[in-house]
């Protein structure tokens, strides 16, 4: 920090972090449950995760939006916290670590977008 009065660009990442955190708090646990245990537990019928159901869901505009938001925002939420935790435990990595950590979120976001586009409408 050479000029401590320089404007911080943190708001961008912080907003993504906050949005992802809120989404994960509201729905995260239930999403994991539905995906991993929904069918085995008997809560969901077996066809819930079938290829056609999921394709239809991902083909729908709202479904697409939902899936994209969940994947991307979860990534951005997670990397923000992870980066700060690195700082907390004394790894004051600078730009390279930032690029590495936030990079996973950026790449994840791009891949998610590509996959969703590939699935088509």
């Amino acid at each position: 920090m050479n000029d401590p009065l320089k404007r911080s660009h943190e708001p961008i990442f912080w907003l993504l972090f906050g949005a992802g955190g809120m989404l994960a708090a509201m729905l995260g646990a239930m999403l994991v449950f539905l995906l991993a245990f929904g069918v085995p537990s008997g809560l969901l019928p077996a066809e819930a995760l079938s290829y056609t159901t999921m394709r239809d869901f991902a083909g729908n505009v709202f479904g697409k939006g939902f899936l994209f938001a969940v994947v991307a925002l979860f990534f951005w939420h997670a990397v923000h916290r992870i980066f700060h935790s690195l700082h907390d435990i004394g790894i004051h990595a600078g730009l390279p670590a930032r690029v590495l950590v936030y990079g996973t979120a950026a790449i994840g976001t791009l891949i998610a977008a590509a996959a969703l586009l590939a699935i088509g409408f």
Partner: protein
Amino acid sequence: MSARRPYIRPMARWYLRDPFFIEYMAHEGTAVFVWLFALELLAGLVCLALGEAAWNGFLAWLDWLPAQIANGLVLLMLLYHGITWFLILPRTIPPVRIGHARLPGWVLSAAGMMAMIAASAVLATGAWLLARGGL
């Protein structure tokens, strides 16, 4: 020359100094599991895009016992994330007032957790309806 020689104490392992900090590190740590879950979902999306065979491979992975155990852990961590997120909430949003009095933090936390339960229920219902071909 002044004899002042201020001593600066090290910060090493500060997070073990106080139970409060241990809890903080624990809830920050949930981020790793959020990240893993995002990765899992991403993998599923890619499989979905690659076609039915790939998707079924993904479903098989979900049924694999080690993956089930891992997902169980992720589930617990996301639950912990949700609860702590709402416990912190009163510190992070502008105070809510009724008249002059500021609503106590626990009311906001409780409201948040109710919202979490409600949203989860809506999500589960939606998924169920979707599977039934409804919606």
